[in-house]
């Protein structure tokens, strides 16, 4: 009998009924973690000494989970999957980690990721490439690649992720699981290694919408250590999952979803968009009104560049603390500037260095108006465009990516201009801090694909309930990689 492949409620019931103990769950999770680490390279650290906890009324008590390696964990190696912090052991817990400790959850590992959350492939971790449990030739996407791989493989029912562009929601789609990034500030970022502070979100990867709601109910809340967090004590996501969505309204964007917009579409893209249309039909059957809307193509075309400019700019500043002086391996050199340079030259991967160069460039006095300030303006325009949609709709529903997980060998970290907006539109959820959830909505070439629902700020309960109803109607929940469909 295995339990780590079950839902949180099922596992909790088994614990309460004494079918299984917390210790047995920890043992199972650790065994699976080692196996998954071997197969997918998904862990930086596996906590073989993880202690079982007392089972209480809290659904999370006694149950193992994984945390992305950019959550500060007291006394436990936390690297951000970077050589600059390869031996760094924090002396404080992130707020989220502390909350899970308080809930009685058992952390059994720290998952690998794209270095400091930068990258959408799962290929830039200092521990090596992370592979997709459905097909090891393919990527998980990123940056929460290890978390997605481990949850999809049934190592534990949930893992913490973080999302700056789509770092939770894209890997979730590629791995056939649920990825939820709540409204900005619903979960405290204290202790999350920053990438781009105005876009960074904490979130969770699970195998069902209900599990996502349960976990986030436990980790959300205003935190005196994070000024951007807000009081959500009146929100109970789990209780909001009624499945009743009659009369709700969703829209999708023609410029993103219409196959006619893409020249020479691949068969995978064609199938993906057709499958999306099929999902819309399911929504309608649930009593949801689904309408096509149009957004200015020029504005949409500008979106990827806006993300690049804003996130890279914030990243250069956010990661300026990595000098090897206070923590991280001390660089060599005849003076302190050379030492800092040496630390950073040796520590960061080429991808990050490229982002720093671009980030610095757009912030320079002579460029700031043209690039950084303009990007901020376009960000505002895009957010306003989405907020306009939320005046009439409960959410925007869109396909995630241009198809199933990509082959690792095809990765050259460049974007195909043709399908760029399809690959990058989830970033608008970060621009606006919108609640956004990806759930699996089918299979293409025996690989899972995902659909995303994004709603207005503070409307997490509504967004989750829509996803919950759709999930039930499609029956792709609680999938474990390799399951035949």
């Amino acid at each position: 009998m295995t339990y780590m492949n079950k839902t949180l409620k099922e596992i909790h019931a088994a614990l309460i009924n004494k079918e299984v103990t917390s210790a047995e769950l920890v043992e199972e999770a650790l065994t699976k973690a080692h196996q998954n680490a071997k197969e997918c390279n998904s862990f930086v650290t596996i906590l073989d000494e993880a202690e079982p906890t007392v089972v209480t009324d809290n659904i999370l008590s006694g149950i193992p989970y994984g945390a992305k390696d950019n959550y500060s964990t007291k006394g436990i190696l936390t690297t951000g999957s970077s050589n600059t912090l390869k031996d760094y052991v924090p002396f404080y817990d992130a707020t989220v980690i502390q909350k899970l400790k308080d809930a009685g959850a058992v952390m059994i590992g720290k998952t690998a990721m794209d270095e400091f959350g930068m990258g959408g492939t799962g290929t830039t971790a200092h521990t090596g490439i992370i592979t997709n449990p459905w097909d090891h030739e393919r990527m998980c996407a990123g940056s929460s690649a290890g978390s997605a791989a481990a949850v999809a493989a049934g190592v534990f029912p949930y893992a913490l992720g973080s999302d700056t562009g789509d770092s939770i929601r894209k890997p979730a789609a590629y791995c056939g699981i649920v990825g939820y990034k709540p409204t900005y500030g619903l979960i405290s970022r204290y202790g999350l290694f920053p990438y781009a502070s105005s876009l960074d979100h904490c979130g969770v990867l699970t195998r069902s919408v209900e599990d996502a709601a349960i976990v986030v109910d436990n980790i959300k809340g205003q935190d005196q250590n994070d000024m951007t967090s807000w009081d959500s004590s009146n929100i109970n996501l789990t209780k909001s999952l009624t499945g009743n969505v009659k009369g709700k309204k969703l829209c999708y964007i023609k410029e993103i979803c219409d196959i006619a917009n893409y020249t020479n579409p691949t068969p995978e893209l064609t199938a993906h968009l057709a499958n999306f249309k099929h999902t819309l039909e399911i929504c309608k059957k649930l009593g949801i009104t689904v309408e096509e809307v149009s957004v200015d193509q020029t504005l949409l075309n500008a979106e990827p560049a806006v993300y690049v400019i804003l996130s890279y700019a914030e990243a250069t500043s956010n990661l300026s603390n990595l000098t090897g002086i206070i923590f991280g391996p001390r660089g060599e050199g005849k003076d302190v500037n050379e030492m800092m340079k040496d630390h950073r030259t040796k520590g960061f991967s080429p991808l990050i260095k490229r982002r720093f160069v671009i980030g610095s460039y757009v912030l320079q006095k002579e460029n700031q108006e043209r690039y950084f300030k303009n990007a901020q303006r376009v960000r505002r325009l895009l957010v306003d465009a989405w907020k306009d949609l939320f005046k009439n709709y409960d959410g925007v529903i869109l396909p995630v990516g241009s198809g199933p997980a990509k082959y690792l060998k095809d990765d050259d970290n460049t974007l195909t201009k043709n399908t760029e907006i399809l690959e990058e539109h989830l970033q608008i959820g970060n621009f606006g801090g919108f609640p956004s959830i990806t759930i699996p909505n089918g299979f293409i070439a025996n690989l899972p694909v995902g659909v995303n629902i994004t709603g207005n700020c503070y409307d997490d309960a509504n967004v989750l309930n829509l996803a919950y109803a759709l999930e039930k109607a499609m029956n792709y929940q609680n999938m474990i990689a390799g399951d035949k469909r």
Partner: protein
Amino acid sequence: MKKIVPVIGIEMHCELKSNSKVFSSARNCFSEEANSNIRPLDMAFPGTLPVVNKKCVKDALKMALVLNCQVPEYMYFDRKNYYYPDLPKGYQITQNTEPVGVNGYLDIPYQNGIKKVLIHDIHLEEDSASLEHYFDATLIDYNRAGVPLLELVTEPCFNSSAEVLAFLEYIKTVYQYCDVSEADTKKGQIRCDVNVSIMPEGATTLGTKVEIKNVNGFGNVVEAIEYEIKRQTELMNAGKYDLVEQETRRFDEETGETYRMRSKVDAIDYKYFIEPNIPKYKITHEWLEKIKKEIPILPLERQKLYTTEYGLSEVDTNIIIKDKSLADYFEECLNLGIDAKVAANWLITQILGYLNKKDLPIEKIYLTPSRLKELITYQNKGLISSKQAKEIFNQVLTEEKEVATFIKEENAQISDEDKLTHIIKNILDNNPEQIKQYHNGKTNLFDYFVGQVMRETKGKANPVLTKEILTKLLGEITH
């Protein structure tokens, strides 16, 4: 040759008083032990976030109001990005987009008149760590990292080092009056950057600006300005003004000279952008009104009050208002009903003398205004002489005991009329010869009798009363 006019602007950084640092919960106080006042944020451990200290924001707003500045609708902070080992995050959180105050002014006393100093802006920011350089190593103390700093930037509105000094001296007392900073130059709480240029009198365009960074202490500010004026003037007079470059220089305290650090071409691009971890914060009208009410009467206004209303001399007034604690002590004395001149006299002659000798702040003095009032009351009632009052003053301070402790029977002045009359009668009875001589015109013998009374009472007889009784009794004897 035309007269040369120097043009000077000041950037003054002053450490604010607060329980905790401006963006972290670490204590903000001087500590002998290095790296004892730190939280994870102060060393920029990954994942830490700034949380704004509301008290510091309030104090910054208070100073913006005192300086008659425009206050923005929202409070923002910016990041100033650069690498230096004393800057753990790799950026300083400061205010660039919307400083807490802009376009202000302050009237300051200058040479028996008033000078209007124009304020470009005032903004709240964090201090860096302090570095200690040794022969083969540099040590970093993060206690200072994150200490709240208020940076005040004036317009180039000064034409001499004397004007600058008057401004610095005055603004220092204003900070102290507003209770936002100790403003102690000895503790390095005030540091200045000085901008100096020169131009021929009557010229309309400013000369080339030279910035002298990080000058510690007002004396050094004056010296740096003087040196720089001299250097630039000599170059101008020699027809080599083009050698004056727009550059940043440093002041060497040993030589009293300035040296080039970097030219404008090498100026650092700080890549400012708004700090995303601190949401913009609405500065409400109600809050500003509340802060306004906390602004005390400033030294310049007190100066007017003391000289015109209380009749103090200008010298005494200036001594008292220079230190808000002194002025507060003085005003408390007045509230207790002590005469202004009496209070000022005690304060300036006795109390300040004592404080200077002991190197104590007035807050620490045992003789509070109410104890001083008690002492003065004993004196006014004639229970003690002024000489005794001074003695008791010293006793109270050295033994730290209540004034009443020292008003003992045997010490007390004899002011009892019956008692004194009895003593005096005895003395007169024993000196019939002197009485006769007195009545025969040797009136200076009156002092002889007084002396006898004092000898008898060991100097404790109330002199006024003694004289009264003596006059009366000597008069009676004639008859």
